[in-house]
């Protein structure tokens, strides 16, 4: 008395297993590439979320004072120390790259691959600027301030390990994103998506790029400002 109707055309066993998992059905009424990118970003959210939670745990449980990020990341400009100056500039650079990327998606859907590619190159250039400033920040911290993953002269040893882990993983995402944007932009110029008549890939690449900006919002607030 099974409630499931038996259907002779549905295969069983291993063949049925494969056909069930590969049957082309959409759960979400969006392009599959977009749904998959969102699911990837969801998994990435858990990675960064776990990193930031780990950072919270070690910071809240150490009895040694935490180094003051406002002072550690200050820049000496015009005779005074401006707190967090470089980090603020990096934040504005990344937001700007998100802005140009959003406009690139708009151009792509208006079937304007030239301007879409141009704006994507601008976004990638902002991304390169961001990574370069991060490289500068890392070398300043390692060479001048003596911060190491296992200790630093300013306070709690966990500062270095969480800082290098979290910003390093984010910087890796930015670097991968720059390569991704350049690849898609070059293909735009070569007319690859015009031939297919589908510019969805620009929006999908944009999702990834905005996510990198999104993660930085949390790192900026929770690591640098807290």
């Amino acid at each position: 008395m099974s409630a499931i109707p038996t259907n002779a055309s549905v295969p069983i066993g291993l063949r049925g297993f494969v056909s069930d998992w590969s049957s082309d059905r959409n759960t979400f009424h969006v392009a599959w590439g977009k749904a998959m990118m969102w699911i990837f970003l969801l998994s990435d959210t858990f990675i960064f979320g776990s990193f930031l939670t780990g950072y919270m745990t070690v910071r809240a449980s150490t009895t040694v004072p935490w180094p003051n990020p406002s002072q550690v990341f200050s820049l000496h400009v015009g005779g005074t120390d401006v707190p967090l100056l470089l980090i603020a500039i990096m934040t504005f650079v990344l937001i700007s790259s998100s802005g140009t990327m959003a406009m690139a998606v708009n151009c792509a859907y208006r079937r304007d691959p030239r301007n879409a590619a141009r704006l994507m190159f601008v976004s990638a250039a902002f991304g390169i600027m961001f990574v370069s400033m991060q490289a500068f920040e890392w070398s300043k911290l390692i060479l001048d301030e003596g911060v190491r993953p296992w200790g630093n002269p300013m306070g709690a040893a966990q500062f270095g390990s969480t800082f290098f882990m979290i910003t390093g993983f984010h910087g890796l995402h930015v670097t991968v994103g720059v390569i991704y944007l350049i690849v898609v932009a070059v293909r735009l110029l070569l007319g690859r998506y015009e031939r297919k008549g589908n510019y969805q890939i620009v929006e999908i690449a944009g999702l990834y790029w905005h996510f990198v900006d999104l993660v930085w919002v949390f790192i900026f607030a929770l690591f640098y400002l807290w």
Partner: protein
Amino acid sequence: MSTASGTQQHPISLYLKIWALLFVLSAMSYMVDYLHFQGLLRWSLILVFMMLKAGLIVAVFMHMAWERMALVYAILVPPLALLVLVGLMASEAGHTFLTRLLYFR
């Protein structure tokens, strides 16, 4: 707005406004540090600006505001589990801190 083929088409001016808004919000969260706000005021301002910026990026730049409800909930609900993790680890960290105060000083 969102068309039948699933493409997202919104005016450029909308993106420019959000861009400007994100600039203002970032400048304001930077001012929290620059003006040396402390205590509860500092933490609440940091968190409010953070959530506003994250919300704008996800809703407008990532087009979540115009996506189908099924996708929105599939993506936005699971990260709430992280709040449970944060709660668990916060109490764990408090416990570790107290035992360190007792035995490792």
